[in-house]
């Protein structure tokens, strides 16, 4: 509350502005916690390698349990496992982020145009998203990756292709809703071009739910990629957390840390992304949180 009050004072505006859903969302403590967790995991993966031995250095004893010099232990060749977790995180997080950005871009273009103009594009979009709602993304991704070759660009491309329609559907629905609002009507009356109305009036106001969908897509992409990598269908040169789990399988009887830690990293990141999406959803649809 105080944050809100001081912000209004600094705005120098005398009236009470209703808090925007995004503003409300960002003020939630839980939101900040999950954002902080994601930031931490990113720092761990991308800055961490500067502080640990090289992940390909095999100088250490093999299969050391976690201990002072090696907080995550070592693997079956005597490589420091903390360093591997960091490098694996780079791949997992990069895949999630890249898929998120591609899905968002495709969704905004196709969903926006479909929602605003309707017509053929709208029908095509609804058919495509229906298709991916029925056929599980992971089966298609599994088969496609195995045939086209398991490397990072292909994995990202295929995950994006199977996941963008869900985001696009939400962009479309939001654009249709916003297009009915008065200020869009007045922009039309003022003679602005449809593309300009779409870009400057419709999309910014349709943004929040789209952000929810994108956040969850990032989580799902990381999850599906880890599944593919676990099956040995990840990029062999760039092992993600899922790939670390794949090689850990043979040591499940002896080296618990090799299985526990990469999976936990996936879980924490995906959970944070889903929780963020969940909280954002709550601030956008107060009707779904209980009023007693």
């Amino acid at each position, binding site marked *: 509350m105080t944050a809100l009050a001081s912000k209004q004072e600094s705005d120098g505006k005398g009236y009470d502005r209703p808090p925007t859903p995004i503003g409300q969302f960002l003020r939630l403590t839980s939101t900040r916690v999950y954002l902080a967790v994601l930031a931490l995991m990113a720092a761990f993966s991308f800055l961490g390698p500067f502080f640990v031995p090289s992940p390909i250095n095999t100088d250490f004893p093999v299969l050391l349990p976690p201990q002072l010099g090696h907080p995550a232990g070592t693997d079956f060749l005597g490589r420091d496992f903390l360093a591997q977790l960091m490098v694996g995180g780079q791949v997992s997080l990069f895949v999630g982020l890249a898929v998120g950005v591609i899905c968002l871009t495709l969704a905004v273009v196709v969903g926006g145009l479909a929602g605003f103009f309707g017509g053929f594009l709208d029908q095509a979009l609804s058919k495509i998203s229906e298709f991916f709602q*029925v*056929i*599980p993304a992971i089966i298609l991704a599994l088969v496609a990756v195995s045939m086209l070759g398991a490397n990072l660009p292909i994995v990202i491309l295929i995950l994006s292709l199977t996941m963008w329609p869900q985001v696009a559907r939400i962009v479309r629905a939001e654009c249709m809703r916003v297009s009915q609002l008065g200020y869009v009507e007045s922009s039309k009356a003022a003679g602005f071009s449809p593309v300009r109305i779409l870009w400057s009036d419709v999309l910014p106001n349709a943004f929040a739910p789209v952000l929810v969908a994108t956040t969850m897509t990032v989580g799902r992409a990381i999850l599906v990629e*880890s*599944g593919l990598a*676990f099956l040995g269908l990840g990029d062999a040169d760039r092992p993600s957390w899922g790939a670390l789990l794949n090689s850990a399988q043979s040591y*499940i*009887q002896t080296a618990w840390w090799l*299985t526990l830690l990469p999976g936990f990293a996936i879980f924490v990141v995906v959970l944070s992304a889903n929780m963020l999406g969940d909280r954002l959803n709550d601030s956008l649809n107060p009707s779904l949180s209980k009023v007693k």
Partner: protein
Amino acid sequence: MKLARIRYFARLAGSSLMLVFVVLLIMFVLLEVAPGDPIQALVGNMPVTDAFREQMTRAYGLDRSLAERFLAYLGNILTGNLGVSFANKEPVIDLIVDRLGNTMILMLPALVLSSVGGIVLGAIAARTRSRLLDGFISSVAVAGFSIPSFWLALLLIMLFSVTLGWLPSQGMNSFTKTGVSLQYLILPVLSLTMGELAFKTRIMRSSMIEVLGQDYIDTARSKGLSSFQILRKHGLLNSMLPMVSVIGYSLGFMLAGSVLVEKVFGWPGMGLLLYDSIKRSENLVVMGILLIATLIIVIVNILTEFVYEMVDPRIRARNKAARDGVAL
């Protein structure tokens, strides 16, 4: 009106067939652009004479054009012929049918557990006055579908097989017996259930909160019904409606999830067959599994729609209005 209804389901069946067709088409195009040579995969590393290679190419129809092969494949499907496996010369359909049952042994208990559990937990979360309990169930639910199913499976193995030694970690039964025994079933079913249970709990929760906010619930309350009666007579059935389609869709996701879970537990089902076939470049088997999986998903979706119409007069009215061309 009967005729309109038949026409409605005929259209649904038509679009489902279209969907199967598109999946097969995508597969064929993928096969065409895929690097690697299936004949090479068949003969292995030792070279063979060019004559033999040509003979194999012809035998598997690989000398014909993509369109020709696609049409031939479609024609074969109609007669139940999905081709012959490269490796062991068995008909693909037999291979799949052998494994399908094992997958169902995992999926059906998981489907029932996750559906019943989801309805109960979701209803409790929506109905409870305790914010703590609701918050707990909701958070655990989000956690439940953030866990990679295969990691959960590995953790269960570490706990119950390696550390405690209570449950076996591989296969369907000990080598001396045939069939399935219950103790082999527990861990894989649990791994497959968790994500779906979490998802269904959330859907049920929000659906029930929405239903309990409706006017007819207020009416029921003002008539003096107890909250239990309201829940039983009005709340539960109405909020279970979205669950019908969720349960329908979840079958597809479980089929996909079973690849990972079967791999971890060495469960000889369709998912493991898909994995093995991918590793061995058995493209006809991969395609066959995709076809069968798509068919299952599509049929379940039609059934779902059918159940929907049967149980909910509102859906019936909406579909009827759509058929009669009336805007509702």
